[in-house]
C-alpha cells in the first residue's frame, strides 16, 4: 500500500505542472467503437440464442436487436466486422506501443489480494488514473482474453467445416456454442461492474471521453 501512496504523490506532483493525458486518443476511439460494437453483438446475439436456447430461459425481445432470427443474424454478421477490425487494431497498438506491458503487467497474486482487500474496505486509491491497480490489471487483461475467446468461438460456430480445426479445439460445434455463450456472460458481467465503477469514479469516465 505504501508504494501505491508514494507513486500517487509523484503523480499529483507532476499533475500540478501540466494536466497529463490519462487515456490517449487512440484508446478512447477504440474503446467507444468497441462498446458500440459489443452492444450490437450482444443484443443481436441474444435474439439468435432465443431461436435455439441452450438453457431454460430466453432473453426478452425488448432487449434484443433484429426483430426476428434473420434480422438478428444480419446485425450480428455486420457488427462482427466492426468488432473484429477494431479489436485487431487495439491488440496491435496495445502490443506495439507497449501499453499492455506497461499498464497491465505484472499481475501478482499478492498485489491482487491486497488491492481486492483495499477495494472492499473502501481504501483503494484512485488518485493516479494513469496507473491501474491490481484488480483493474487482472480484470482488463482477463477481458482481453475473453474478447479473443468470444471471437474465436464465434468463428468456430460460423465455420465448423472450413475452420474445423478451430472448432475441434473448442471441443466441437456444440461445445463451441457454450464457450461462446459463457464468454458473452463474462463480458456482460464485466460491463455491469465496469459501468458501475466508472460512475462511482466519474473522473475515470471523463478521462475516457476527453482524455484527461
Amino acid at each position, binding site marked *: 500500500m505504501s508504494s501505491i501512496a508514494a507513486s500517487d504523490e509523484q503523480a499529483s506532483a507532476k499533475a500540478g505542472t501540466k494536466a497529463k493525458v490519462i487515456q490517449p486518443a487512440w484508446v478512447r476511439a477504440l474503446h467507444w467503437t468497441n462498446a458500440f460494437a459489443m452492444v450490437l453483438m450482444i443484443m443481436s446475439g441474444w435474439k*439468435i*440464442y432465443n*431461436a*435455439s436456447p441452450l438453457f431454460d430461459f430466453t432473453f426478452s*425481445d425488448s432487449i*434484443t*436487436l*433484429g*426483430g*426476428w*432470427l*434473420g*434480422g438478428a*443474424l*444480419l*446485425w450480428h*454478421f*455486420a457488427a462482427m*466486422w466492426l468488432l473484429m477490425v477494431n479489436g485487431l487494431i487495439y491488440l496491435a497498438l496495445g502490443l506495439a506501443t507497449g501499453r499492455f506491458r506497461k499498464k497491465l503487467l505484472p499481475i501478482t497474486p499478492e498485489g491482487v489480494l491486497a488491492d481486492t482487500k483495499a477495494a472492499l474496505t473502501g481504501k483503494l486509491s484512485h488518485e493516479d488514473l494513469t496507473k491501474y491497480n491490481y484488480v483493474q490489471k487482472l480484470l482488463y487483461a482477463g477481458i482481453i482474453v475473453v474478447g479473443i475467446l468470444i471471437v474465436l468461438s464465434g468463428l468456430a*460456430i460460423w*465455420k*465448423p*467445416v*472450413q475452420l*474445423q480445426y478451430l472448432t*475441434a479445439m473448442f471441443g466441437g*460445434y*456444440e461445445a463451441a*456454442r457454450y464457450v461462446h455463450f459463457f464468454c458473452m456472460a463474462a463480458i456482460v458481467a464485466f460491463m455491469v461492474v465496469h459501468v458501475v465503477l466508472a460512475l462511482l469514479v466519474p473522473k475515470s469516465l471523463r478521462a475516457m471521453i476527453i482524455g484527461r
Partner: protein
Amino acid sequence: MGRLRNLLIPGVDKTLLLKDAVKTMPDLTRRRFISGGASLGALTLLTGCDVTDQFSAEEMLKQVSKFNDGVQAWMFNPDALAPTFPESAITKPFPFNAYYSLDEAPEIEAKDWKLEVRGLVENKKSWTLEELYKLPQVKQVTRHICVEGWSAIGSWTGTPLRDFLKIVGADTRAKFVWFQCADKDGYNSPLDMRSALHAQTQMTFKFGDEILPRAYGFPMKIRVPTKLGFKNPKYVISMEVTNDYKGGFWEDQGYNSFSGS
C-alpha cells in the same frame, strides 16, 4: 436511398404511405417487417434518424450480407470435407424441422414423381425415382447445422450431385444449381456451383439406411454438409443449372445466401 426517396410522391405523408404499404403485405412478411422495424425503431431513438432511415439500415445490412457471401466463397475450400462421425453418434430421433408441421409436409407418391432437369444441361430429360435409384450411392454420417443454432448428426445415402451433373451434361461453369421443391408455398434455394460440385454434396434417397421418410424429404433431398440446414432442400422436384441468381424461400427473407459452414 436516393432511388427510394424519388419513388415517394411529393405531398404524401411518408408515415401514412408506409402504413398503407404494410397493410398490403402478406401476413408473415408484415409481422417480420413490423417486428424488424420495432427494434430498428429502438435504434432510431439512439441515433436520432427519421423513419425513412429504417430503409437505409436495412439496405446497409443487405450490402454487408452480400459482402459476407463473397468472404465465405473466398473461405470455401472445395477439398475440405465436413467432419464425419461413427454411426453411434447419430442423433435419435433426428429432428423434423420446417416452417410447417409434419402433417402439412408434402405427401409424394413415388410413381407420380419425376425430377425435372432444366437450364444449362445437355440432357433435359426428367428422371423417375426408379432410374435415380440405379445410380451409384454413397453414405455419409455428418452434422446437420440449423440456422437456428441447434445441430444433429444424421446418416444420409445417395448419389453425389457432381456425378449426376456430369451424367446430365451440366455446364459446370454456370454459377448456380437452383432447386425447387414440393413444400407448401413453394420452397426453393440456390446452390453455388462450387458447393454443388463438393464431394459430399449429395442427392439423398436414404436416411439411416432406410428409404428417405416423408419427414426428411421423400423422395429426394439435397444434402449439403458444407451449408446450413435451410440450404439442404427437401421434397425436391426440379433442378436448374443457371447463371442467374433466382433467390430462395429463406434467402429472400434475409437469411444470408451463401450460409456456408
